[in-house]
């Protein structure tokens, strides 16, 4: 399989001093689902922003390495151009436009497209078929939608750009278990039915590994582990640290956590 996205040894620095990524490399083959796992602050979101050209607003910059998308070097491209190239991100926390209606939210996604308005209309209809839940609330302010609906709006909005690759940042964040399942089912369907390559960043290793073909695990700005998802699912370390399953196979109870405390202070 051809690599649609190729990230080679990038280093990202914020405010010219804080180094967040230290030589991250990853590949996303065309048509696949790749997941990027890791703890809070490991640099997953930064990696996604670097790929989508959205580091600038946060005062970040890629200092080393390169990013190639679909054969073009996109290392120093701005967000708009990256979207035009066909790589669209669904940001963390949904970021829907609260004061726009659901329909307007989805429509905005097509801003970078140059094809006819008929094609855009068709795609809009397709989105509602894909997310039937949204078709009932097209004229409601997106801000009044529930978390799950907002996640769907954000995904539909990104899909309206007709991307080759969809990047999702923590789609499960703050969602109830059943909804998480629904969203991930949707992601899989999008991958299959619309032929969209997917890169998903998650903390919830369990669900992410379940749907992806290949996975990377990040820790403090570096890729520490990678492999086909099937293999990682059975990796004991991954099981313990990312899925909360003890070596015995069962789950460790939170109640058994030992509490220890220092009781003295110097002042």
């Amino acid at each position, binding site marked *: 399989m051809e690599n649609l996205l190729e990230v080679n040894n990038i280093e990202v620095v914020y405010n010219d001093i804080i180094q967040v990524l230290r030589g991250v490399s990853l590949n996303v083959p065309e048509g696949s689902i790749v997941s990027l796992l890791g703890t809070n602050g490991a640099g997953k979101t930064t990696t996604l922003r670097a790929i*989508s050209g*959205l580091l600038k*607003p946060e005062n970040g910059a890629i200092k080393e390495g390169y990013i190639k998308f679909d054969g073009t070097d996109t290392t120093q491209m*701005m*967000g*708009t151009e*990256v*979207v*035009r190239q066909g790589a*669209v*991100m*669904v*940001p963390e926390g*949904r*970021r*829907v*436009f*609260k*004061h*726009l209606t659901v329909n*307007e*939210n989805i*429509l*905005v*996604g*097509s*801003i*970078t497209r140059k094809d006819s308005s008929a094609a855009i209309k068709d795609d809009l209809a397709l989105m509602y078929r894909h997310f039937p839940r949204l078709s009932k609330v097209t004229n409601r*302010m997106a*801000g*009044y939608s529930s978390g799950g609906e907002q996640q769907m709006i*954000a995904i539909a*909005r*990104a899909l*309206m*750009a007709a991307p080759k690759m969809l990047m999702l940042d923590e789609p499960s964040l703050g969602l109830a278990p059943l909804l998480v399942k629904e969203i991930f089912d949707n992601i899989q369907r999008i991958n299959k039915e619309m032929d969209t390559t997917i890169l998903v960043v998650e903390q919830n290793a369990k669900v992410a590994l379940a749907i992806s073909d290949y996975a990377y695990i990040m820790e403090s700005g570096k890729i520490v582990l990678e492999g086909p998802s099937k293999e990682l699912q059975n990796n004991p370390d991954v099981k313990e640290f990312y899925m909360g399953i003890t070596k015995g196979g069962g789950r460790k109870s939170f109640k058994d956590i030992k509490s220890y405390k220092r009781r003295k202070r110097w002042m």
Partner: protein
Amino acid sequence: MVYFFQIVVSGIVVGSIYALAALGLVLVYKSSRVANFAHGQIIAAGAFITYFLTVDLGVPIFFSFLASMVITFFLAMSVERIFLRRLIGEPIISVIMVTIGLASIIDGLIYLTPFGTENFSFPAFLPTTPLTIAGVSISWTQLVGVIITFILIGGFSWFFKKSTVGISMRAVSDDQFGSMSVGISVPRVFGLAWATAGLSAAAAGCIIGNITGLNFDTLHAFGIVVFPVVILGGLDSIMGAVVAGIIMGLIQQFATGYLDGNWGLNGTGDVAPYIVLLIILLFKPHGLFGIHEIERV
């Protein structure tokens, strides 16, 4: 009764001109959340450019009107580019003060020209005989002003409601990072917002200039005068600006028509809008049509 209707008509005329002057403020606020205190200066600049083109270069007034709109379009765009671009994301007070500083700079620049201190007047290009219907009269300048106002305002509200670019401008005002993620170029949207605001300011400047004559002091004061209008309408609503503009126009005319000269009152037209504004804000803290922030705790 004719007296009453004349006041109503005058109120609507004045009000729609307010609305046009307020439009630029709304456009800028709507997309970039910036309250532009230099708007009055842009209004004045637009009027002076038209005058300069018409009188000093001999361009027919209609074309210089259009040209002035085009020039201020780019002028405002570059103002955004040079001064406001760096301040994206800074606290509201900084942004307000930058526009105040900007106003001062433009003041200084205009003082370098004769326009800063002297009075000028547009050559008359419309019939000077007024239209009189049932005793209520309206001048051609005013009529044309009102028509242009409504054309522009109608155009802009269509633009924001229906066109993808318009929707994307609203999207930017809502969530900048979210907008970037779908490929909207936020800087371009800001530039565009300022540019369209500049355009509407030029139109407002020409119309006001035609009515009052070109006096820098009067013209740039409009930047402040229309603030109650914008706030009353709700900062981000074009519709609100129109309704509030007309309300304020009526209040002002009625205050002048019925309060002044009685009970020792005078100049109430200037202060009544502010008083009404305060009262209305007590009941509607986001103006008449302003968006209520959707907040989730």
